[in-house]
């Protein structure tokens, strides 16, 4: 079965430090991969997505993610975090972008920023 795993439930980083959030996928072929962010009390906002081509994907708010087929990973990175980045981050995957393809979400990683 297709799945998306986020191994870190909670991460704490200092403001200005770099960030990497891990995501591993289990799909037979190259999946379509997404990172979403959920700020407290809000819905989910799309940060970036990967479908094909360049394996380094740039997103909004200074985030990027790298697709690594050999490691079945799609980790999210940011070189310098801001206090406003404190939120919950979800990785999601789909087998394709056709029709009714469902997204499978990871369990999320909660990011805390300390001054």
């Amino acid at each position, binding site marked *: 079965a297709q799945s998306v795993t986020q191994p870190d439930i909670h991460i704490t980083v200092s403001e200005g430090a770099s960030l990497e959030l891990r995501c591993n996928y289990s799909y037979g072929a190259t999946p379509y991969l997404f990172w979403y962010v959920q700020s407290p009390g809000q*819905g989910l906002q799309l940060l970036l*997505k990967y479908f094909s081509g360049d394996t380094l994907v740039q997103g909004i708010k200074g985030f990027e993610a790298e697709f690594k087929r050999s490691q079945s990973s799609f980790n999210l990175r940011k070189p310098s975090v801001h206090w406003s980045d404190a939120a919950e981050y979800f990785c999601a995957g789909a087998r394709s*972008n*056709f*029709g*009714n393809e*469902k997204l499978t*979400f*990871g369990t999320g990683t909660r990011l805390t920023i300390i001054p």
Partner: protein
Amino acid sequence: DVKVTQSSRYLVKRTGEKVFLECVQDMDHENMFWYRQDPGLGLRLIYFSYDVKMKEKGDIPEGYSVSREKKERFSLILESASTNQTSMYLCASSWSTSFRGSGIESTDTQYFGPGTRLTVL
């Protein structure tokens, strides 16, 4: 900008009540989805709809039903609310590639509403 709205941000109901959660999108999206979000479990798909009057079960449909009479509106119904349905409910919508063709801009990127936090007492 895509806008997905949900009828209530917070809702408190009693066990056994019939509960309606409404979701409206303004982007002419074909697909609409209902998820519930619980700590440590992430988002789990309840039902989705790819066209008016069409629906398909997601991963956890038990205890829920849905209605889609108009393209822009997708309702989640709890026929008889129970305490284990206390949760955050998120609605999402997306275009359908099968209708609009493939390509980066027409992918099934899902856009989410703000959520409804439902408490069943």
